[in-house]
């Protein structure tokens, strides 16, 4: 069997086995659905609560997407500013790190006090997601080939030519790696903020559904919402990986197929 086929077949087999075992355990011990619902029940809930969950998914994805976009723009812009003006880097980099190392779960309740809820959720998604973009892009901008920099200097390139024609393209692989991490993190940020807002919030995202279902002991719906969240995360990861591959496939080592 080819390696390619194995890489698809094996995880599918593992998934099937886990689901079968889960189903068998629920049946064998007659576990009630409010403790652990069988896979079939989760699937049925997914269909019966379909429109409700779908709308919630759209809300969460919307926030994730906005947070990601802000993180991408903010992270890249900040990294460029850092690389162009040392003083800006010295002044602000420590605070970017502090913002990153403080757990967002701890910040979320504060943000919810000071900001209207949708904005607070968005701010959380942004805070978690922007740092990997900033850090990776900064690394990329700083690791440009020194001889290429000398070449640009030799031809009297302007600062902006160096940035636009050399530093940004050279930083692209790291930048895309940062964006790939940021995609998953902005989903996490959005979920954390929704959970923190809890049932008090007027939001209707998937995480809010999970919290709400938890209070109502509607465990099958919790599972269904969780499943949708995972699928959303996976979809985001694959979409960003595809973008990265398309952008780099002609030239970067990471996107090359190697023949042996």
């Amino acid at each position, binding site marked *: 069997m080819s390696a390619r086929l194995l890489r698809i077949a094996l995880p599918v087999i593992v998934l099937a086995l886990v689901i079968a075992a889960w189903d068998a355990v629920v049946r064998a011990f007659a576990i009630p659905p409010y403790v652990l619902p069988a896979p079939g029940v989760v699937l049925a809930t997914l269909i019966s609560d379909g429109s409700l969950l779908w709308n919630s998914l759209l809300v969460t994805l919307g926030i994730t997407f906005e947070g990601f976009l802000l993180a991408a723009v903010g992270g890249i812009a900040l990294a460029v500013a850092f690389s162009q003006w040392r003083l800006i880097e010295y002044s602000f980099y420590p605070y970017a790190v502090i913002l990153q190392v403080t757990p967002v779960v701890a910040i979320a309740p504060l943000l919810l006090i000071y900001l209207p809820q949708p904005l607070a959720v968005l701010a959380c998604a942004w805070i978690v997601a922007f740092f990997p973009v900033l850090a990776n892009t900064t690394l990329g901008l700083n690791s440009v080939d020194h001889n290429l920099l000398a070449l640009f200097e030799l031809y009297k390139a302007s600062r902006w030519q160096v940035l636009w024609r050399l530093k940004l393209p050279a930083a692209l692989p790291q930048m895309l790696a940062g964006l790939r991490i940021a995609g998953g993190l902005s989903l996490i940020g959005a979920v954390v903020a929704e959970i923190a807002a809890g049932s008090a919030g007027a939001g209707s995202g998937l995480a809010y559904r999970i919290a709400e279902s938890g209070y109502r002991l509607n465990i099958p719906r919790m599972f269904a919402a969780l499943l949708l969240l995972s699928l959303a995360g996976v979809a985001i990861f694959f979409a960003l990986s595809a973008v990265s591959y398309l952008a780099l496939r002609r*030239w970067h080592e990471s996107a090359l197929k190697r023949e042996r």
Partner: protein
Amino acid sequence: MTAESPIISLRNVGKTFESGTTALDRFDLDVREGEFVSLLGPSGCGKSTALRIIAGLSKASSGTVAWPAGQSAGPGDIGFVFQEPTLMPWATVARNVRLPLDLAHADSARADKAVRQALGRVGLTEFAQAYPRELSGGMRMRVSIARALATEPRLLLMDEPFAALDEITRFKLNNDLLAVWQEMRRTVIFVTHSVFESVYLSQRIVVMTPRPGRVFTEIVIDAPYPRDERFRTSADYAAQCRRVSEALSGAMEGVT
């Protein structure tokens, strides 16, 4: 040799790095228009530093660098070939060669023509749309040379460009470089640590002493051009190599 005024003239040039290392000390060099000069010396003798000072990529700590033949070099007057091909991996061969012209906001039609011409000179016309990673080491170096030639520079500076290549490729590129030089008649300053390469290519070899880099002696190689494989296997070539080799040993010992 005619007594033309030199295209570039270094007087008493010294370079001390912040670390305290003295790379060059009282270094003198005159290069005439159209000349092919090699700087020969062991690693760490400051020959690359001298080249970077001529290119304006590094500042001399003391002494003067002058362009007596005309005004000082503007952008595009100097072509530089590094030890590595130093290509932009995200750009095609044509875009790489075009870079100096793009940076100078050259007229597009003129730039296209210059790129075609430069790629033709190094025999890479068919590879214009290829990416650097698709090329062999020797071909990448050709692209690098084509880029340096794209602006038709008055002075071509080459910093051990073929050191990382295998011998067969190096010989081929030596021949091609000589062909380009004879066709364009530009001034070339070629840095190398290979006695054989310097004798094969140059009209004049400047042998340098290590630490601090200084001119030990100059040797004129008066063999006529075009030089080819016959020259490479001739008794004359062997004799010249021996002479240069002895001079280099002398420079290493520090005896005059």
